[in-house]
């Protein structure tokens, strides 16, 4: 009998997410319609031939009123057709460029968050209860990690340049393999550096650490763990099982923030992920690309929050009965 409410809650949540996606895409579409002057001139790059403009106008439903135009656009974008790239990668379909780039970005974000989780949890276990002596350490760390991730990334890249100046002999051309700015497409190091900058910036890591430590402490002091301890059993398994739910929640809650900082960090380290493509396309005024990527980013936020809710419901049956 446990399954039925779970299925119902899942369906309800799924419908809600779809509604959100439609609503958010409507906001994005209306932003396009709000372009100043003649919309089609505003959104096409300089020197676009008239037949291209006509095609673009048809793609965005600009020849109709906003509502039917929106549904025309939605019916095509719902099946993944966001039109063709105008300037970033002319002639290719937006999805052909956006999807591989997006995969790289999601990988980077996921690895960053996982590394943050592992480090934060490890540190939280090591540090134990907060005390006045720890504030000497955590206070400055808190201030330093509040730096925006792009500043961390810039300082990091500068430090690297300076470091390499010291260690690379004059006249040698090859940079070391751990150089953060990619020169070879298959190098993994830029991703490691970008992940580090994102983790160290925006207060992300200290946030993780504080949340995890608070959860861990409150669990350790809770009645049932004390009862387990009193019986002489191991508490580790019980703690891990109950730590799941808050970890997933904060994982999902931080992803939008990370999806924001990844845009700029990718640009600084010139990683060809979705953030880099978004900024380049925006610079080149490649509209279909910018709109397509914006929808993809929004869909990711919605999908992750949906997935987090579902996993939470599976892991913790109390969530369902609470009607969450």
């Amino acid at each position: 009998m446990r399954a039925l409410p779970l299925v119902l809650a899942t369906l309800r949540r799924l419908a809600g997410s779809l509604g959100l996606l439609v609503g958010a895409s409507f906001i994005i579409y209306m932003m396009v319609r709000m372009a100043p002057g003649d919309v089609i001139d505003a959104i096409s790059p300089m020197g676009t031939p008239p037949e291209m403009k006509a095609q673009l106008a048809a793609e965005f439903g600009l020849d109709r009123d906003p509502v039917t135009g929106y549904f025309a656009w939605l019916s095509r974008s719902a099946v993944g057709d966001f039109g063709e790239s105008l300037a970033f990668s002319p002639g290719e379909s937006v999805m052909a460029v956006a999807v591989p780039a997006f995969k790289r970005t999601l990988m980077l974000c996921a690895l960053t968050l996982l590394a943050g989780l592992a480090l934060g949890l490890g540190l939280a276990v090591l540090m134990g209860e907060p005390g006045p002596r720890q504030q000497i350490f955590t206070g400055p760390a808190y201030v330093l990690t509040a730096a925006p991730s792009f500043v961390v990334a810039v300082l990091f890249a500068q430090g690297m340049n300076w470091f390499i100046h010291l260690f690379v002999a004059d006249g040698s051309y090859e940079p070391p393999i751990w150089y953060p700015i990619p020169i070879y497409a298959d190098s993994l190091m830029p991703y490691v550096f970008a992940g580090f900058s994102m983790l160290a910036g925006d207060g992300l890591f200290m946030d993780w650490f504080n949340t995890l430590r608070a959860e861990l402490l409150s669990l350790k002091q809770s009645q049932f763990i004390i009862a387990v301890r009193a019986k002489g059993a191991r508490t580790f398994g019980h703690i891990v099982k109950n730590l799941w739910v808050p970890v997933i929640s904060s994982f999902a809650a931080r992803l939008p923030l990370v999806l924001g900082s990844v845009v700029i960090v990718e640009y600084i380290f010139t990683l060809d992920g979705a953030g880099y493509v978004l900024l380049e396309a925006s610079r080149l005024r490649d509209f279909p690309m910018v709109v397509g990527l914006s929808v993809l980013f929004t869909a990711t936020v919605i999908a992750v929050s949906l997935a987090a809710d579902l996993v939470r419901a599976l892991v913790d049956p109390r969530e369902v009965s609470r009607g969450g």
Partner: protein
Amino acid sequence: MGGRGTSFALWLSGAVVGIVLLIGIIAPFVGYDPVSDVDYDAQLLGPSWSHLFGTDAQGRDVAIRLLKGTEAFFLPGLLAAAIAVVGGALAGAVAGYLEGFGRTVVLGLLQLIDTLPRLVFIILVCTILNPSITLISGVAGVLFIPAIATVIRRKVEALASEDYILAHVAHGFSPARILIYHILWLQCRPVLIRQATFVFGYVLFVETALSYLGDYGVQEPAPSWGNMVAQTRDLAGQAPWPWLFPAIAIVLTISAFLSFGNLLARRDEEAIR
């Protein structure tokens, strides 16, 4: 919690916040012409008494550009904080107060805004409208309304069943007065302070990030902390001060605003309890 360490941190961050606010207020009255400041005989000078933080690649004084750079985010930041706090408090109070259909509509709208990834949406707005930093910060303020509204709504819902609020209702106080004065002002002040400083810090982040990227935000030759940091791109390793001082200023200001808001709110929360 609390104790001497906390109040020292509060004073320290408060001092930085105060200095930034002071500079933000006096900056518009300082005359500065970035073009006539160019001096090719004084490129990349180190810090000295005549140039406190040195000069940049065009021989412009870094200190005065730092000071004038506050104009780029000061008023926009205040505007965004005001929009987010007023909008969030009202939306949260209304959502907490209403029942049935109206509540569903308000909650749905808030959730809708909340799903838009903030920076991505701001870049989209920039691409379409090529807006001023004031409009960008207005958008940032709106994007923060749901975050504030959620906290306020929970608070309103929790307080609505409290005896003393019921007593106010029984005394015939108007709902507006109970919501605005007794709930928002007396009970939610710490939350609002914390969120306002957070939004201000976020606008500083957005402004510096956009100016750093160069296409939107404040354009050279007008100074902004972001486009000052962007000089790293041309100056690889030659002289650190043109970009190091603005980078330090960004880090210090953002962390000071965040910790000041947090500490002040925590003290206020303890006082309410």
